[in-house]
C-alpha cells in the first residue's frame, strides 16, 4: 500500500515534470527566433592633437568608454557621460561652436562623414548639396582645429551598420529615456593607448637637379630656375588628410614638368643654358618651415645663381583665373619678366593671370606663401595659385573636403602647360614668338594619364608630416620618381620647428556594444530568486509534505514554547 502510494506520487511528479519540460522546450524554441545584435566594429579616425608654443589644440583625449546618444538636447541626459553621434550634414555649426567655446562637458563626439564611395568623401559638385557639404566640412575643420577640446573627437564614415545603430539610438532618445548605465542602450568603446608626443617629427625635403648645357667658353655658373611645391598636408583627421588639391595638384604639376624637361635635357642639342632645380618640400602648413631649412642648406653659389623660383600651390580646381603672388613690388624688373612670360602663354590658352602683392613683415613669423621664404633670402620668387587671398595658419592645407573629386584634371593640365611653356620660352629665348613646344600630339605632349595616375596615388596617401616616417612609401615613391627625371637627387631630413608638437594615436577601432541596464540585471536576479524559492517550496511540498515546509519556518517559536 505504502509502495503504491509512493509510486502514485512519484508518477504524478513525473507527469508534471514531462509537461514542464515540453513547455520549456517550446518556450525556448519560440524565443530563439529573436536574438540580440552582435557587436559592431567600425574604423574611426581621431581629431588631431597638437600644441603651438605650448598652447594645446585639438582633442586632448583618446580613450572612449561611454553610452551613445544622438543629440545634445535629450532631456535629463548626463552629457558628460555620453558620446554624441552626429552625421555631419545635420550638424548645427553655430551651436557646436558655442558649445565648444563655452567648454561645456561632453563624454565624446563621434562625427559621421557621408558614405565613402571609392576614395571620395564629397563627389564632384554636381548639386547644391555637395557644395554645401564642402562648406560645412571646411568650417567644421577650422572650428575643430583651433579649439581646445578636452574630450575625444572621432570621425567615421556612415555605413549600414552604424546607420542602424544611430537609428536605434535616436529611437531610444525619442522615448524620453536618456542613455545612462541604468537604462541600457548602446555603449561605444575605443581602446587605444593614451596619446604620446611624437618625439622628433621629421620633414623630408627632396630635390632634383637638372644641369644645363655649359658651353666651352663658359666659366661662370649657369643660372638656375627653381620649381618648388610642398607635398605635405594638415587636417582635422590626420589619417584622412590626403590634400588632393592642396597640394597634391602642385606636386603632380612639378613631376610632369620635371618629366618634360628631362626629355628635353636628355639630348645635348635641346639642353637649355639654365640649370633646373625641382624641390618637393615638406612642412608647408607650419609656415613653410621645410622650405626655409632647405634654402638654408644651399651653398652661397647656388643661392646666388637662382634667377627665379616658381612655387606651385593649389592649382587643381581653377577655371579661368590664376594668381601670381609676389612679395616684391610688381614693378620690379624680374617680377615683370616672369609675369609677362606667364601672361603671354595664358593669353594663348585663353585664361587670365592676376598679380597680387603682399609685403613681407619680417617681425611676423607667419609665412603665408612659399615664395616668402625665398624672398627673405633675397631670391626672386613667385607663387602660382588659384587662391586669391593668403591663407591663414593651417587653412587650405588639405583636409576632409579636399579629396580626389574636388580636383579638375583639366586645370592641372592647363597649369602645367602654362608653366612649362613659359619656362621653355625663357630658357630658349623665344619670348614674343608664337611657338608651342609642348603641343598636343607631339612627343613632348603633356601626358594626362600620368597626371591622373599620380593624382590618384596622392589622393590615397595621407601626408601629415609628423606622422610620415623617413621611409614612408609615399616619400619613397616621390624620391624614385624625381630621381627618374633628374640627374642628381638629394634628400634632406630635418625636424619640424620646435614651436609645433604633435601627438600620435590617429586611428582606432570603435566597438559598439548593445548593453542591458543594471535594472535589467537586478530584475533578472529577483526573478531567478523567486523561481528558485518557488522550486524549493514545490519540491519540499511534493517530496516531504506540507508539514515539513511549515516546520522549516516554525522551529524557533516551538523551541520557545518548550522552554516556557
Amino acid at each position: 500500500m505504502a509502495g503504491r502510494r509512493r509510486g502514485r506520487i512519484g508518477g504524478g511528479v513525473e507527469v508534471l515534470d514531462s509537461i514542464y519540460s515540453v513547455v520549456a522546450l517550446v518556450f525556448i524554441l519560440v524565443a530563439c527566433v529573436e536574438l540580440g545584435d552582435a557587436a559592431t566594429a567600425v574604423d574611426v579616425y581621431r581629431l588631431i592633437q597638437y600644441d603651438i608654443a605650448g598652447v594645446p589644440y585639438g582633442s586632448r583625449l583618446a580613450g572612449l568608454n561611454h553610452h551613445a546618444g544622438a543629440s545634445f538636447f535629450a532631456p535629463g541626459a548626463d552629457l558628460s557621460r555620453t558620446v554624441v553621434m552626429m552625421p555631419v550634414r545635420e550638424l548645427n555649426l553655430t551651436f557646436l561652436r558655442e558649445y565648444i567655446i563655452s567648454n561645456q562637458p561632453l563624454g565624446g563626439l563621434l562625427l559621421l562623414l557621408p558614405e565613402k564611395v571609392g576614395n571620395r568623401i564629397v563627389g564632384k559638385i554636381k548639386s547644391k548639396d555637395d557644395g554645401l557639404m564642402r562648406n560645412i566640412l571646411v568650417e567644421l575643420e577650422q572650428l575643430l582645429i583651433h579649439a581646445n577640446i578636452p574630450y575625444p573627437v572621432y570621425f567615421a564614415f556612415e555605413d549600414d551598420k552604424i546607420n542602424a545603430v544611430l537609428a536605434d539610438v535616436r529611437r531610444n532618445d525619442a522615448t524620453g529615456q536618456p542613455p545612462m548605465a541604468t537604462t541600457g542602450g548602446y555603449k561605444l568603446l575605443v581602446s587605444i593607448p593614451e596619446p604620446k608626443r611624437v618625439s622628433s617629427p621629421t620633414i623630408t625635403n627632396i630635390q632634383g637637379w637638372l644641369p644645363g648645357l655649359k658651353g666651352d667658353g663658359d666659366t661662370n655658373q649657369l643660372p638656375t630656375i627653381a620649381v618648388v611645391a610642398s607635398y605635405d598636408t594638415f587636417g582635422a583627421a590626420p589619417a584622412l588628410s590626403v590634400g588632393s588639391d592642396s597640394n597634391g595638384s602642385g606636386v603632380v604639376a612639378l613631376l610632369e614638368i620635371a618629366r618634360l624637361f628631362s626629355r628635353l635635357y636628355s639630348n645635348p642639342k635641346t639642353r637649355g643654358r639654365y640649370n633646373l632645380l625641382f624641390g618637393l618640400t615638406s612642412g608647408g602648413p607650419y609656415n613653410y618651415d621645410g622650405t626655409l631649412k632647405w634654402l638654408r642648406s644651399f651653398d652661397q653659389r647656388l643661392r646666388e645663381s637662382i634667377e627665379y623660383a616658381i612655387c606651385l600651390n593649389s592649382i587643381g580646381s581653377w577655371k579661368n583665373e590664376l594668381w601670381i603672388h609676389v612679395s616684391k613690388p610688381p614693378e620690379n624688373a624680374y617680377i615683370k619678366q616672369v609675369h609677362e612670360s606667364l601672361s603671354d602663354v595664358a593669353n594663348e590658352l585663353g585664361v587670365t593671370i592676376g598679380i597680387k602683392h603682399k609685403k613681407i613683415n619680417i617681425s611676423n613669423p607667419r609665412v603665408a606663401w612659399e615664395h616668402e621664404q625665398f624672398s627673405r633670402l633675397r631670391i626672386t620668387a613667385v607663387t602660382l595659385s588659384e587662391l586669391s587671398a593668403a591663407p591663414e595658419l593651417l587653412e587650405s592645407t588639405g583636409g576632409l573636403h579636399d579629396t580626389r573629386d574636388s580636383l579638375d584634371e583639366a586645370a592641372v593640365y592647363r597649369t602645367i602647360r602654362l608653366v612649362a611653356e613659359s619656362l621653355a620660352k625663357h630658357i630658349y629665348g623665344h619670348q614674343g614668338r608664337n611657338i608651342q613646344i609642348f603641343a598636343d600630339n607631339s612627343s613632348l605632349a603633356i601626358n594626362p594619364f600620368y597626371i591622373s595616375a599620380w593624382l590618384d596615388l596622392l589622393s590615397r596617401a595621407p601626408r601629415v608630416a609628423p606622422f610620415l616616417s623617413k621611409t614612408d612609401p609615399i616619400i619613397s615613391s616621390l624620391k624614385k620618381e624625381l630621381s627618374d627625371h633628374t640627374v642628381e637627387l638629394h634628400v634632406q631630413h630635418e625636424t619640424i620647428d620646435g614651436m609645433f608638437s604633435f601627438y600620435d594615436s590617429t586611428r582606432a577601432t570603435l566597438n559598439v556594444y548593445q548593453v542591458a541596464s543594471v535594472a535589467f540585471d537586478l530584475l533578472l536576479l529577483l526573478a531567478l530568486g523567486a523561481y528558485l524559492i518557488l522550486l524549493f517550496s514545490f519540491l519540499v511540498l511534493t517530496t516531504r509534505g506540507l508539514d515539513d515546509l511549515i516546520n522549516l519556518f516554525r522551529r524557533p517559536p516551538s523551541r520557545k514554547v518548550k522552554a516556557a
Partner: protein
Amino acid sequence: MTVFHFFNCAILTFGPHAVYYSATPLSEYDTIGTSAKAAAVYLGTALVKLVCLATFLKESENGNFDPYQELLKVLINFIDVAGLYFALTQLTHRNISQNHKFQAVGLGWAFADSVLHRLAPLWVGARGLEFTWEYVFQGLEANANLVLNLSLAALGSLMWLRKNKPRILIPIIYACAGVLATMPSITRSDGKYLFITTMW
C-alpha cells in the same frame, strides 16, 4: 554589469540542481556520494560517445538526410542509456531506497551534463560587454535537461531495479525508454555532434 550577468546565468543553470538536492529528502540521506559517482560515469560515457562518433560518423557532404548516419547516431545515443544502466545498477550505493537512488543518479547525471556543456561557454561568453539572450536560454535549457535526466533515471530504475512491475506497463515503459533515448538527437542540433567530431 557583465560579471553580474554571468552570475545570473550561472544561478539559472546550476541553481536548480542545488535546490533539488537540498529540498528533497536527498540531503537528509546524504546521497552526495551517489551523485558524484553518477557524474563520473557520465564523464566516462561522454568520452566513449565522442570516440565512437569520431570513429564511425562521416561528414555529410551535401546535408541530405542519410538514414544510415541517423541510425548510427541513434545507436551511439544508446551508449548514454548503457551508461545510465551502469550507474544505476553496477555501482555500489549505500543503503538508500530505490526512490532516492534514481533521483540521486539523475541529479548527478544532469549536473555533470550542465557543467560539461554549459560552463565553458558561460564563462567565456557571458562576461563580455555585449548583451545577448543566449546564456539565459542556455540556463533554461539546463533546467529542462535536469527534468529530462531525472525522468530518464526514473525510467531506468523502473526497468532495471524494480522486480515486480504491473504487466500492462512493461511495453509502455520500454517504448518511452526508446523515445527518450533518441530524443537528444532530435532536440539537440546535429551540428553540435558534428562539431565535436571535427574537433577530434
